[in-house]
Structures are given as structure tokens and as C-alpha cells.
């Protein structure tokens, strides 16, 4: 009886000791985190451990993904800039290169923290390995909106538009992006290429409508330039579009089948077409675009 009681007490003491040190270790770790101001995560090198996970790469990637989600949900880590997000995302995607969500989540969050270069790094890795259209789409957004590099933006948006399963509006965005970068011809060429690649009748009709809009936009731009030349030459604005014949250079006169729809208001000198609801605005070219073009 005494032996039993002693054994029971011994077990209680050992369990108590284990619990005490567990709590102590946990509190100490919390203090260390507070001191270093960063949530510490064990992040092994993905390229190395992928060889030693007994074929369970996707499962291991899932477990690290859960860790990433928890990390993102840690207010302390978020406040301090999520410095371990990129290595964690690389680890997951080294283990499972097709882990589309990991690229997307890391890319978006890094963008929100204004770490665009890192966001592009993980998204470009994703664009090579995953077939999700969102990845090149986010890249396009990063280049276009954050870096003001319209050429790269359009390049990635075009890639997104070619991924099966993307929403149809992506194609429209590509056109606008090219148009806004001042290369209307490229937008037309791309739309024609898309038209050839698209078996769906519904989507083809939509693309044909967009091609028509691009033609009208081109006509409008030509007319506007012709009007400017006319005003410079005659010292007054044109009263009608017919006045332009013989004055404006022939290459500026519209040739599209829709040019009859163009309407000119001599008072405001505005040209428009009822067939085109919204003009493709041409933004001011900024440095990166000019540099990219020069390259």
C-alpha cells in the first residue's frame, strides 16, 4: 500500500516537474519573441528537405501552408512587417511547386506591405510553375499599378488572358492596358490572336466587339491628330470633318468600316462615336515605361 502511494506520488512529482518546465520554457520563449520583436519560425531550406520527406512533399507543404496562414494571422508578425513570409512561401513552393494559393497569398500580402520586388519574386516563380491565371494577373497589377511599367504589366496580363479558366474581362483589360500604354496596334494584334485561339462562339463575339471598338478608337485618334494639323495649318479649327480631306495627311484619314459613325462638334472640337461608349484614355507616360521601351 505504501509502495503504491509512493509510486503515485512519484508520478505526480515527475508530471508536475515536466509541467513546470514546459510552462517556464514557453514563457521564456514569449519574452525572447518580445525582445527580438519578431515571431520566430523554423523554416528549413525547401530545396534540401524536399529530397528527404519520404515522398510526402505535398503533405509537408500543406503543414507549412497552415503555418503560413497562422503566421499571417499573428498581429505581432504583421506589425513587424512579416519578414518570414517570403522564406516560408519559398519553402512551401519548393516542396510543392504547383501550390498556387501559396504564391497568390504571399504575392498579395507582400504587395499590401509595399514589398513589390519580393511580391514579384514569388509571383514570377508561381507563373513558371502554377497554371492559375491569378498569378500573372497579380504580377500585371504589380508592374502596372505599383511600378508603372506598362509594358511588363501588359506582358503579364496577356499571359493571364491565355490561361484557361480566366474571366473574360481579362482580355478587355489587356486591350486597355496596351491602349493606355499608347500601343493600340499591339492591342489589336493581340485581340486578333485571341480570336484565332478561341473556339467559344460567345467569346469570339465578345472579341469581335472589342476589335470593333479598337478600330473606332484608332479612327478617333487619327481624326484628332488630323484636326490638330488642320488648326495649325489654317489658324482656325475645322468646321466639319469633310474639311480635313485634302489638308490632313492621307495616313491620318480613317479607313475602318465604322468611320461613318464618327461625330464632330466644331464648338468643342470633340470627336466621338456612338458605337464607342468609353474612350481608351492615354495616361501620361512615366519614366519606367520610357526606359522599358528604350531597352
Amino acid at each position, binding site marked *: 500500500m505504501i509502495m503504491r502511494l509512493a509510486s503515485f506520488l512519484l508520478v505526480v512529482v515527475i508530471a508536475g516537474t515536466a509541467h513546470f518546465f514546459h510552462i517556464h520554457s514557453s514563457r521564456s520563449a514569449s519574452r525572447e519573441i518580445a525582445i527580438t520583436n519578431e515571431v520566430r519560425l523554423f523554416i528549413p531550406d525547401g530545396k534540401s528537405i524536399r*529530397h528527404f520527406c*519520404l*515522398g510526402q512533399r*505535398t503533405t509537408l507543404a500543406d503543414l507549412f*501552408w*497552415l503555418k503560413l496562414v497562422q503566421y499571417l494571422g499573428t498581429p505581432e508578425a504583421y506589425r513587424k512587417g512579416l519578414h518570414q513570409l517570403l522564406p516560408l512561401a519559398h519553402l512551401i513552393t519548393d516542396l*510543392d511547386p504547383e501550390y498556387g*494559393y501559396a504564391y497568390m*497569398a504571399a504575392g498579395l500580402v507582400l504587395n499590401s506591405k509595399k514589398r513589390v520586388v519580393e511580391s514579384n519574386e514569388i509571383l514570377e516563380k508561381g507563373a513558371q510553375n502554377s497554371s492559375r491565371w491569378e498569378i500573372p494577373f497579380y504580377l500585371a497589377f504589380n508592374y502596372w499599378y505599383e511600378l508603372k511599367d506598362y509594358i511588363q504589366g501588359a506582358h503579364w496580363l496577356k499571359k493571364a488572358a491565355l490561361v484557361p479558366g480566366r474571366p473574360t474581362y481579362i482580355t478587355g483589360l489587356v486591350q486597355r492596358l496596351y491602349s493606355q500604354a499608347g500601343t493600340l496596334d499591339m492591342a489589336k494584334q493581340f485581340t486578333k490572336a485571341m480570336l484565332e485561339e478561341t473556339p467559344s462562339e460567345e467569346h469570339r463575339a465578345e472579341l469581335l466587339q472589342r476589335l470593333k471598338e479598337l478600330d473606332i478608337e484608332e479612327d478617333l485618334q487619327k481624326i484628332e491628330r488630323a484636326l490638330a494639323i488642320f488648326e495649325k495649318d489654317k489658324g482656325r479649327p475645322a468646321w466639319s470633318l469633310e474639311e480635313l480631306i485634302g489638308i490632313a495627311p492621307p495616313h491620318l484619314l480613317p479607313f475602318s468600316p465604322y468611320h461613318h459613325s464618327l461625330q464632330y462638334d466644331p464648338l468643342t472640337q470633340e470627336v466621338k462615336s456612338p458605337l464607342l461608349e468609353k474612350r481608351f484614355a492615354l495616361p501620361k507616360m512615366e519614366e519606367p515605361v520610357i526606359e522599358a521601351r528604350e531597352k
Partner: protein
Amino acid sequence: MINRILAMGVLARTTVAEAIRDRILYGLLLFGIGLILLSAVLSNLTVGFRLRIVTDISLSAIMAAGTIMAVLLGVGSIAKEIEKKTAYPLLAKPISRGEYIIGKYLGVLSTTYINVLLMMAAATFMIAQYREESGHHAYAWNAFIITLLFLLIRLAVVASVAVFFSTFGSSTFALISSVGFTVAGYFTSELRFFLEKSESELLRAIGKGLYYTMPDFAMLDPLPLLIHNHPIFTPSTLFAAVYALAYALCLLTLSAFLFSRRDLG
């Protein structure tokens, strides 16, 4: 011929009856089902695509538990029985040693399959709860079933490895070798990859030799294909299945040959 098949069937049935009493099996079964349930808990910690987490962790849990079962049962039903001499009365009966090995193997495999099928049922039930989350694609149940079949095929190879090492060594040797060989089976393609980068002709030849000698379990795992919604039923998976079955058959033949030459006296 029919008598021999019947004898092997009786042996397999006896092996199942003996093995099913082993408590460690229940422990492993609970471990597997526990992990499957855990996958549902873990899936609540993620953002989106919970179906992937449940599928991935459940099938990995089944594979892990099934592998441990196949190794323990394979070693326990042959090497241990020889060590304890409980196999001798059976071997004294009019049954060849080859038939003994095959009967035992079938028993080991059947016991493993019974447990694994229970875990598979639990996993399928769990996955069915999340199937609505498979997005605009319907969940690829055909691919899921093929993945389960491949899991069974892999376990057949693992069991044949355990039986093979049990035929000529002690139970400890058989256990360590089976575990080592099975683990190495997941590294064969990596091993070949690294050794083929070597400048030494000899090392490259060794790499190639090991690659073709050891089982290639990575080839027999269509789980990543299922997870990423890639086509599973392709000629390469069909070849992989034939390869695995031929590999297991080859090991069993070798086991029967080695066991028939073993001096049990």
C-alpha cells in the same frame, strides 16, 4: 494444384486470425483514424481549399499506418515465428516452403488491407464532407479511387519486402532491413539524380544499379496528381502498377527460393 492453393488459403486465413489478435494493429488503426480526424481539424485552420488538406493528410496517414502494419506483420508472422519455433509444426506438414511463404504473405497482406480499408472508409467519409469545396470542378472520385488502389499496390510491395528479409534473417535484422529498404525506396529517384551528377563512372553505375534494384515508391504515388487535378489514368501510371506488381512477385519468388534453402535445424 487446387489442394496447394487451398493450403495456401488456409495458411493465409490462419495468419489473418493470428495477426488480428495483435493489439499493436489496433493501436496503428487508431493512429491512422486519429490522423484522418485531425486532418479535418487542421483544415479549419486554413483559408480556402480545405479539401486538399483533408485529402492530403488523410491519405498520407493511411500510407504511414499501413506501411508500419505491413512491416510489423511481415516480420512478425515469419521471422518471429521461426525464432520462436512456432513455424516448425506447420513446416512439418505436407506444404512446401514456397507455399508457406506465399500463404504467409497473403495473410499479412489481407490483414493489412482489412485495416487499411477501414481507414480508407473513414477518409472517404471525411473527404465526402468537403467535396462541395472542390470549386467549379467536380471532385475527381475516379482519380481518388485510383490513388487508393496505388496505395494498396505500394503496401503489397512493402509487405513483400518485409517477407523477403524475414526469410533469411532474425526478426531484428528483418525489421531494420525492411524499414531501411522501404525508406530507401522513397529516395531511389533522388539517389539516381545525385549520383548521376557525379563525375565518377563507377558512382554513376552504382546509382543506376541501386535505382533499378530498390523499389521506386515515388513513382507509385499519384497523390500529387490527384491534389493538382492532373490526369491520373495515363500509360505511365499503368506501367507503374505493372512494375510494382512484378517487383513484389519477384521479391516473393526470391523469398521462396531463399527460404527453401534455409537450414532451420
